[in-house]
């Protein structure tokens, strides 16, 4: 407060130095009269110290909730209400939206992206609470396409640094199945198509678990698998009436969209069930095909654990009797698992029957171009190509093998580990010893697969 100044209007000495938009002024604090104004122009040296203030900082727009952000928050709440989520989800989703909005990339994004962001926040909240909501449902609700949704989703997960657990399949089955309108008779759904919810749910869950165990679910969109499983479950509960109904018609009856991959998933699931059916003695006689196996799904599901184990372990053993026949016929057949390597014509097969149970293993110290190895232990019979030698003494349990010239690498697969070696650089017959430790009574397994560069 400078001394000796008086306000011209009211005469008080209370003059305050105030700045109005960075222009310093002397203002009387009683009447508000502006006594002196600061210099309107600055000197050259003064201008050097000035800093440009960006619009976003000077207006403070980031601290306030902008109109589009308010709109977005309202949409988040509406979406949660439409999906009938518990009230705590709403608050979490709103918090995520606000957190995302603080990043400049989101704040300056197009309105379309902000729309999709609403869905992403809701999806993240649901996933974290293990509430099954698919991206497809959110996209249809938001009228957005999946590409935009997925792009924004990946971006927001990275920006916020969130750990989003994956979709819970069991819960998804429950919600998805409940949406099928087959549990009450109606004008479009005849009585014989109506089904009890609990039975269908449990059977669908078992089928989905089966699909999971047999590698039909990994890497694929879960919804078509569940559709196919529901269809099969529904058919199997009353096969006599329902076998005539196709998958498309079923979905129309149930008032559910048919996802495009569902028909191929259905075929795959039927193939798995057929393989399992081959293990059951009383079903082998019946010679089932894809339509008739539906009738026996109940039995198959009851024993599914043992059947799956047997079917898919014996699956690899099925090649064994075929290979045995090939061996009998001689060296004509080069096909099989090692077709790409293909030894030269005139290669001989010598079998060593000196040790029972080790047929096909060449005699000790012999060099073979091609050898068939019969492994009675678990029924695999494969072919080892290339030069190889057994260890010189029968007690020692290691082998050497060499790479074939031409650059192919061989794989020796044993019970405990497998090895695969690159061909040597100079591409000669240089031996690259591969030491495989195994008990003496276990014969060597042959080549599972080879690759040509």
């Amino acid at each position, binding site marked *: 407060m400078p001394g000796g100044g008086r306000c011209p209007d009211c005469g008080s000495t209370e003059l305050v130095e105030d700045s109005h938009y960075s222009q310093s002024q002397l203002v009387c604090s009683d009447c508000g009269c502006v006594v002196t104004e600061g210099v309107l122009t600055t000197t050259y040296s003064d201008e050097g110290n000035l800093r440009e203030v960006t619009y976003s900082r000077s207006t403070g727009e980031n601290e306030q909730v902008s109109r589009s952000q308010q709109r977005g928050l309202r949409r988040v709440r509406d979406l949660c209400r439409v999906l009938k989520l518990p009230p705590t989800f709403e608050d979490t989703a709103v918090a995520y939206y606000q957190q995302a909005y603080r990043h400049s990339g989101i704040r300056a994004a197009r309105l379309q992206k902000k729309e999709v962001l609403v869905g992403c926040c809701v999806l993240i909240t649901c996933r974290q609470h293990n509430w099954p909501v*698919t*991206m*497809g449902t959110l996209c249809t609700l938001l009228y957005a396409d*999946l590409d935009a949704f*997925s792009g924004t*989703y*990946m971006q927001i*997960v990275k920006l916020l640094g969130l*750990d989003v657990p*994956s*979709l819970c399949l069991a819960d998804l089955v429950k919600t998805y199945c409940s949406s099928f309108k087959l549990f009450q008779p109606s004008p479009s759904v005849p009585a014989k198509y109506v089904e009890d919810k609990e039975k269908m749910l449990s059977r669908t869950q078992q089928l989905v678990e089966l699909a999971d165990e047999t*590698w039909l*679910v*990994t*890497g*694929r*969109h*879960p*919804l078509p698998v569940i559709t196919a499983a529901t269809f099969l479950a529904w058919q199997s509960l009353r096969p006599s009436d329902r076998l005539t109904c196709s998958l498309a018609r079923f979905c129309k009856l149930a008032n559910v969209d048919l996802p495009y991959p569902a028909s191929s998933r259905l075929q795959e699931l039927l193939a798995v069930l057929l393989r399992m059916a081959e293990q059951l003695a009383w079903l082998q006689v019946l010679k089932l095909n894809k339509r008739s196996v539906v009738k026996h799904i109940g039995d198959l599901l009851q024993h599914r654990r043992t059947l799956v*184990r047997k079917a*898919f*372990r014996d699956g*690899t053993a099925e090649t064994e009797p075929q290979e045995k026949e090939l061996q009998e016929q001689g060296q004509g057949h080069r096909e099989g698992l090692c077709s790409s390597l293909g030894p030269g014509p005139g290669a001989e097969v010598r079998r060593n029957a000196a040790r029972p149970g080790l047929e096909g293993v060449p005699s000790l110290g012999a060099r073979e171009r091609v050898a068939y190895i019969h492994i009675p232990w678990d029924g695999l019979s494969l072919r080892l190509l290339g030069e190889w030698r057994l260890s010189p003494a029968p007690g020692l349990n290691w082998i050497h093998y060499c790479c074939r010239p031409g650059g192919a*690498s061989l*794989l020796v*697969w044993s019970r*405990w*580990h*497998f*090895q*695969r*070696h*690159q061909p040597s650089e100079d591409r000669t017959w240089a031996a690259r010893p591969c*030491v495989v*430790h195994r008990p003496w009574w276990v014969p060597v397994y042959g080549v*599972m*697969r080879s*690759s040509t*560069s």
Partner: protein
Amino acid sequence: MDADSDVALDILITNVVCVFRTRCHLNLRKIALEGANVIYKRDVGESVVDLAAYTVSYGPRCRLTRVTGGLLSLNRSEEEAKFGARRLARSLQKLGFQVIFTDFKVVNVLAVCNMPFEIRLPEFTKNNRPHASYEPELHPAVCYRIKSLRATLQIFSTGSITVTGPNVKAVATAVEQIYPFVFESRKEIL
């Protein structure tokens, strides 16, 4: 696995993307009209010199795309990339441009690797939480990022892995790093 067992996997390099400068202005129209094996893509504003039929037996499959900053060449391995780029620069020289081959740099390497086993993806993502991201609704593979190497691996359930990285060494290191994790979540042959 035994201590002395050594697993060597085949890493097949499918693509090497590199950039080099020619230090001269290239008239795209002239290249398109007079050059051999050229596809002129007008809408993108690029001129693509395609040398796929250059030498079939040994030579690389080489494709040169002129982008505003420099020239990209796609190839099979790093040395071949450099040879291919030089070859392309030479053919441009023959067209009459004063080309100086400078600033050769390999930008991206794409490789494919096949594991002998199948991989359980949900288990794998659970064990490797921050780096691995798996959205079955969007993409069938797990996307695993190694920040230190700036490499991205896409791991499929069949066991094939696609790796992209800044150079071949990074790609090989990435595969080595991922192998133990992938081995844990493999499908056991019953």
